[in-house]
């Protein structure tokens, strides 16, 4: 499953970066992830509950950050397993300033799926990816607004 997206966010890269390094924020904006617990240097235990219409599944696994480039981006690696299959995603996130106050966030990567998800998902996977991408940026926007308000 390919995961790609790009969006301009209304905050400078430094602010976006700070949010991306805050696990509580990350847990709120990454679709599905409901909890992140730090287990080591840039390593987290992640619990995800995916609910899309009739499809629901509880995933658990780890999340690690690597290739950390301050204010510029990192590589996020999520490994999740569930009864309906496992997902192993590697996504590179890049930040680029747009003018003074905006940031272009681009991500590019893919998820390796196994089990039932891989076997029966082809018809809908790109739809899932597109929706997850939309949700990610919507969540990000929402988070930015809440930050502004507070």
């Amino acid at each position, binding site marked *: 499953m390919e995961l790609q997206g790009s969006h301009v966010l209304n905050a400078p890269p430094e602010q976006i970066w700070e949010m991306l390094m805050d696990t509580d924020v990350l847990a709120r904006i990454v679709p599905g992830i409901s909890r992140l617990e730090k287990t080591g240097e840039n390593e987290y235990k992640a619990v995800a509950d995916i609910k899309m219409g009739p499809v629901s599944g509880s995933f658990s696994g780890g999340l690690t950050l690597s290739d950390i480039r301050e204010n510029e981006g990192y590589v996020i690696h999520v490994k999740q397993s569930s009864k309906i299959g496992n997902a192993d995603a590697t996504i590179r996130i890049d930040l680029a300033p747009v003018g003074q106050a905006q940031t272009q966030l681009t991500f590019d990567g893919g998820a390796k799926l196994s089990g039932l998800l891989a076997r029966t998902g082809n018809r809908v996977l*790109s739809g899932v990816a597109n929706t997850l991408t939309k949700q990610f940026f919507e969540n990000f926007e929402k988070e930015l607004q809440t930050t502004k308000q507070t």
Partner: protein
Amino acid sequence: MIPYAFDYARPESVEEALDLLDDDAKILAGGHSLVPALKLRLSAPGKLIDIARIPSLKGIREENGEIVIGAGTTHDEIMKSDLIKQHLPMFAEGAALIGDPMVRHKGTLGGSLAHADPSADWPAMVIAADGEVVLRGKNGSRLVAAADFFIGFYSTALEEGEIITEIRLPVPAEGTRMNYQKFAQPASRFAIVGCSVVRHPDGSVRVAFTGVSDAPFRDTGVEEALSGQQLTDDVIEAAAAKAAQGVSLNSDHFATEEYRQHLARVYCKRALKAVA
């Protein structure tokens, strides 16, 4: 394939159904989408609320310039309805393209919309026909335009605790022409591209797609290109060329993004020609 265990309830009324509806419950209508998901254990509700026999959710009627279709009306009933054939012939013809006879006998319009499969046929038709979806919760009903109802993959404007009760479609003015064109996926027979077009006597045209993106959508790009124009071959060609722009495109074994976009243009053109 065996589902996880769950409880089952068959309420007599929408009110009763709403009382039962909580986080852990799923609404069961025809079941031809939900039960396969349960069997594959993709879905694990604690409780199913079977609304298929609630009388108020059944039937098709004309009311205040609208055709009102109960959410529990089956594809087969819509296909065979004289009222539909008279006012919304595209719905009768389109229904015949859904699934297969067995699916049409059990599957319902409300179930299909709530399920929001990105390749389902109904959403494109309901959007193009300017339909509205009536959602009912414990605190009453609200209306959502079909064009705003589908927000993503299997995701809709339905809030927790709401049920679709009706779909309301304006009775088209005399002279309205409508058409649904579908390029079916050869295995599932879901739409790789489905394009629905409604052309009103005033010349305005509504265009909607299913199958193309993670949610069905109204294509204002095409509509604008047609605005104030006669539907000549050249105009159609130029407008269809704008189909499915600015949306994230689906891809699968049968159609990459590029081919899907091409099909969207071809099927848009064909649907437009059918109403020209």
